[in-house]
């Protein structure tokens, strides 16, 4: 029993609820929400330490023993993601301070933002399938409102598509829950894993596994990403950045959890199929990223590529592959928030997202330009930046697992990323300076701090990779040995 586990859910939730009352007081809202998120980061650091020393931590809510009550389980994988989530959330929040209009900030922006973080944190921590659904809905409903923030026509149109897609996938999620409950009679993840290991994963259970795969693939943007480019390019930058950094990652997390803890008995069917999905995602995402001349579209397609790449590590089911996926997942959360914030700043300065109309920004904003360059190199996987280790391990994992084609496609996808990011860099930052100081629509004042923070974190993640290696290996080990998770829940 470890009561600290509930803190990452309760802290933002309670403060969010309090802030609903004080929604007209912007200063108070800023301070309190920053405190809530910083406290969450502190708690996740504590959790990482505890899990490192004492193994997986659990909390049975209300004192009801598993499998009857709802368990909260913090293993190293979820704790690392919690920390990354908190860092990204803090940076996006600081960015929102200056970029969101005052009117919008009074319209419950901060409570919604905190509820979104609550839902994401809860999804990482819960050990109960239905509870996972509830937390999914929590952050989805917050995202439904956040995506329409500002109320532009474009946003309304895209948000409708986003919402309908997600409502239907949530319905499928519940169907999966119902089927799984009628087959096994339990919804506790650890208990499910035990029961399915006992009776064997027959055709029926594999079918349900595919149902869950469809659900989470829709949320993660794994092949079923048709909703993603539209809906991630309409909201204000701070919101788009947190969507790109967190929302697809929760779907990836759920895929990892389900297919390492519960449905891991038939990898030649399920994991092979996930591999095909991952390969198609990388190819289609790559084509999208090199095909568009719109800054936001290029960035959203880069989100898609990375989803395919992270999942490729899971497909291999080797310790190298999973380690790589965890490295890359953490790196990707940070870096996606970073490039979305930089992209948003570029649009903020120039007033357009068309690459052909932006040029020469590096002369007036060298810091911004070089940070973008670093982020781009990091995404491609140039050592010693943070994307490198993840790429190496995932590629090695896929080769070890015998998925040579998947590893090869992953490497080709890196070239797509390189091309698209260099196109962005050379067009937006190099070349003739088009705007003089007076012509720029805004300043980078106040916007640069969160970008610098994220760059530092990303650099630290790359250069200090040795330092977090022990945590990541532990997380991979826990994912590959479901018995560790089960034991922790039932003891």
């Amino acid at each position, binding site marked *: 029993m470890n009561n600290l586990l509930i803190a990452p859910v309760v802290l933002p939730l309670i403060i969010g609820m309090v802030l609903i009352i004080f929604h007209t007081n912007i200063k108070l809202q800023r301070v309190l929400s920053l405190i809530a998120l910083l406290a969450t980061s502190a708690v996740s650091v504590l959790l990482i330490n505890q899990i490192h020393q004492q193994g997986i931590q659990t909390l049975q809510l209300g004192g009801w023993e598993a499998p009857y009550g709802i368990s909260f389980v913090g293993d190293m994988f979820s704790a690392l993601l919690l920390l990354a989530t908190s860092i990204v959330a803090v940076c996006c929040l600081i960015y929102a301070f200056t970029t969101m209009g005052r009117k919008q900030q009074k319209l419950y922006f901060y409570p919604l933002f905190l509820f979104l973080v609550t839902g994401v944190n809860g999804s990482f921590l819960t050990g109960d399938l239905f509870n996972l659904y*509830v937390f999914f809905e929590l952050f989805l409903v917050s995202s439904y409102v956040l995506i329409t923030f500002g109320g532009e026509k474009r946003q309304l*149109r895209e*948000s409708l598509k986003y919402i309908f897609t997600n*409502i239907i996938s*949530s*319905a499928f999620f519940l169907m999966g829950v119902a*089927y799984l409950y*009628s087959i096994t009679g339990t919804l506790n993840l650890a208990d499910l894993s035990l029961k399915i290991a006992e009776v064997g994963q027959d055709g029926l259970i594999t079918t349900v596994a595919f149902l869950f795969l469809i659900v989470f693939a829709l949320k993660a943007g794994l092949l079923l990403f048709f909703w993603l480019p539209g809906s991630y390019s309409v909201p204000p930058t701070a919101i788009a950045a947190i969507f790109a950094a967190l929302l697809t990652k929760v779907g990836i997390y759920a895929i990892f959890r389900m297919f390492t803890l519960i449905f891991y008995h038939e990898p030649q069917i399920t994991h092979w199929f996930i591999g095909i999905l991952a390969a198609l995602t990388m190819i289609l995402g790559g084509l999208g990223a090199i095909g568009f001349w719109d800054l936001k579209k290029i960035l959203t397609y880069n989100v898609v590529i990375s989803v395919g790449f992270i999942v490729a590590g899971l497909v291999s089911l080797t310790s190298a592959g999973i380690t790589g996926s965890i490295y890359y997942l953490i790196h990707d959360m940070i870096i996606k928030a970073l490039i979305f914030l930089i992209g948003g700043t570029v649009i903020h300065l120039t007033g357009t997202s068309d690459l052909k109309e932006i040029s020469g920004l590096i002369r007036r904003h060298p810091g911004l330009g070089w940070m973008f360059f670093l982020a781009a190199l990091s995404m491609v996987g140039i050592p010693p930046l943070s994307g490198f280790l993840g790429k190496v391990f995932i590629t090695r994992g896929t080769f070890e697992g015998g998925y040579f084609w998947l590893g090869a496609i992953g490497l080709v996808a890196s070239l797509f990323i390189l091309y698209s990011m260099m196109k962005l860099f050379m067009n937006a930052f190099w070349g003739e300076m088009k705007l003089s100081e007076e012509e720029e629509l805004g300043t980078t004042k106040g916007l640069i701090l969160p970008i610098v923070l994220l760059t530092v974190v990303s650099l630290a993640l790359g250069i200090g990779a040795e330092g977090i290696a022990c945590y990541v290996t532990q997380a991979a080990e826990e994912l590959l040995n479901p018995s560790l998770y089960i034991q922790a829940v039932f003891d």
Partner: protein
Amino acid sequence: MDTLIVILVGILVTIGTYLILSRHLLRIVLGTSIIGHAVNLLIITSGGLKTGAAPLLGEKITDFTDALPQALVLTAIVINFAVTALVLVLCYRAYQGFGTDDLEQLRGEEHE
């Protein structure tokens, strides 16, 4: 009884799918709502229907109906209700903004 309910769920999902495939926003909302109800029925059925008495502690009765799906379905209904309400508001706003509820016209422009 269980089989009948499952067939009913199938019929409801069919109707929901038909409505979702239409072009009018309001019909799509109704479609998602009907699918939501179908799923709720499915959850209730997943615990087995009418297998015993109400799940209250007593000495005479030995078999109880599974209470967990009922708890799940309550939560699911509430969430479904909230989301439907939100979508209806959004659809109304979209209708106000665009002057149409035809999805064909809400596809998005080529170059924005």
